[in-house]
């Protein structure tokens, strides 16, 4: 929807919104509407000159200002919001379905009741959302236990498998939240071992036990922002360059890449940040002949040495 249509929609819904909240503070209304207070004042000024044919004092939308509050005193007949559009119904209904599908959700009943009411209010506009099906990963005991620890605000001792280093470690964490991203469940927690916020994949938590002490993430423990997915490469991570054959091109969909260039021979030259080179070594070895490591040199050397050491066992 274009910005102009956005404004018209906001104006038409603003009158019933204010009608139901006499004496609302402009700052509260602006926050609810996700606009600046200045924009809101501008919207109100515009509405003030609109109204019923005749356009005299008794026909125009009227409102009274008292300090920084506003009350609609005449609505000119636009006392109800517009129906939901297809896109609005789609956004709300699919999001509620995703929530309802989330395993171990504490108050699924509220979500399901809200979903039924929104679907019914949307009427025909709900048809589009009817063409969407969602399913999140199946429920697990572990998810329930971790979720319970988050809810009760308890610290957890976990046995965690780190695929990047292929090792299993025990650590005490202060849980912050459980979230689902890209089809997987994660525990976000302050890890006391590394003294930083970490995202732990639930399917890699091999054991978890609740401790008798409260979770107390320190003030510097901020939730990870997740606009681009779970793995957020940072510039200090080692940059790995690979030549990727046709059959292994899927890795460019799977891992965030810094650069992908097609070579004359049809292979793709791919640069990506590796969590560490041990991980990169296992990735390249496992992808077989379809992928060749180009840089750094020590990665090439390590791969070659690994392969020769492994071959020795078969001779």
């Amino acid at each position, binding site marked *: *929807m274009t910005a*102009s249509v956005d404004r*018209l*929609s*906001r104006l038409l*819904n*603003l009158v*019933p919104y204010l009608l139901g909240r006499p004496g609302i503070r402009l700052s509260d209304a602006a926050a*609810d509407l996700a606009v600046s207070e200045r924009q809101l004042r501008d919207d109100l000024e*515009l509405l003030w000159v*609109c109204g019923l*044919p005749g356009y005299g004092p008794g026909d125009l939308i009227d409102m009274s200002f008292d300090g920084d509050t506003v009350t609609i005193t005449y609505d*000119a*007949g*636009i006392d*109800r*919001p*517009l129906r939901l*559009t297809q896109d*609005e119904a*789609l956004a709300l209904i*699919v999001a*509620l379905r995703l929530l309802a599908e989330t395993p171990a*959700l*504490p*108050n699924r009943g*509220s*979500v399901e*009741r809200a979903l039924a*009411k*929104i679907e019914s209010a949307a009427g025909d506009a709900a*048809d589009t959302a009817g*063409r*969407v*099906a*969602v399913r*999140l990963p199946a429920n697990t005991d572990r998810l329930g236990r971790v*979720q319970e620890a988050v809810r009760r605000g308890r610290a957890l001792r976990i046995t965690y*498998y780190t695929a990047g280093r292929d090792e299993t470690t025990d650590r005490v964490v202060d849980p912050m*939240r459980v979230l689902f991203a*890209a089809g997987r469940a994660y525990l976000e927690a302050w890890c006391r071992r590394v003294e*930083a*916020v970490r*995202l732990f*994949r639930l399917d890699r938590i091999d054991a978890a036990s609740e401790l008798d002490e409260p979770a107390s993430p320190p003030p510097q423990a901020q939730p990870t922002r*997740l606009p681009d997915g*779970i793995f957020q490469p*940072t510039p200090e991570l080692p940059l790995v360059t690979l030549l990727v054959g046709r059959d292994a091109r899927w890795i460019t*969909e799977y891992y965030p890449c810094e650069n992908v260039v097609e070579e004359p021979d049809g292979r793709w030259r791919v640069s990506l940040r590796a969590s*560490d080179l041990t*991980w990169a070594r296992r990735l390249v*070895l*496992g992808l*077989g002949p379809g992928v060749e490591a180009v840089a750094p040199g*020590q990665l090439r050397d390590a791969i*070659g040495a690994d*392969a020769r*050491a*492994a071959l020795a066992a*078969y001779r």
Partner: protein
Amino acid sequence: MSRSRTERLVNLVICLLATRRFLTAAQIAQTVPGYEHNAAEPREHEAFQRKFERDKAELRELGVPLETGTASVFDTEPGYRIARPAYALPDVILEPDEAAAVGIAARLWQHAGLASAASSGLLKLRAAGVDVDSQATLGIEPVVTVEPTFAPLTGAAADRQAVTFEYRAPEADAPTRRRLQPWGVVCWRGRWYVVGKDLDRDAPRCFRLSRIVGEVRRTGPAAAYQLPEGIDLIDYVARWSGPPEHRGHARVRLRHGRAAGIRRWAERVTAHHDGDVAVLRYSDPDSLAGYLVGYGADVVVLDPPEVCDAVVALLERTAARYPETTSAATDLPAAPAWSGESR
């Protein structure tokens, strides 16, 4: 949109909501401010007609239901009005916990394409009297990302209208144009797919939304086909993208205390003096070999021969591709600090 145009449109909506008679374009021009013109002057009249057409289109885009009809059997020119029941959102009465759920749901799209649709929908609910707490949390939350083609594809599926798009599978060199009768859109394991009948292959297919390049265009009439009955779209995608059945068994020897990933995945692991023996289920010897080779000398395949041969072949090619260098710097440095544990 200019301020005067917005003002004109608000007045037009108020006027058409208030009238019970159908108002002709000429009557609207005489009533609503902003449409004044000299109807006897052909150029002015044409300009008015264009303006009015644009305004009607704008209102329809917004979802304002414009009704057309004639005021009486003697009228030849069509008139317009807005039927209040079709315009207004019906009463929505949400309990506080339900309103909180809606607020959380709307926030799911904050990083995804439907954010503005979610917030304008939320505004309408608020205008209907629902108090949505925008701070509420559930202690558990999905993070949703969705491609821009999501809304156009679901819309086309709802209207049963065929679409065309450019689709690029990673193993293909260039995108290919596909023609599809979409049945629905599915979120499965965090990825979005559209399922439907591929018109060129005359068979059901599913496509990953992340592989669609550019825009989705509708083609042909709406309501052009029937949705197949009794098909479970998620089931379809799951079968298409799911892992194959694991029929074979392989035995591998692991170094003591190494290859933690294989141990977690193994059916069983038994201790021996020269290493632990793990039993693994697999479907394809080559993909199992690729996985095992990643562990280097920590893993030795004992049987069956098809896996053993695949591993040796892979290792030989790898050893040849990365010949020994004179530098002895094959020891990798310790893992650097990193902000996630997800790999």
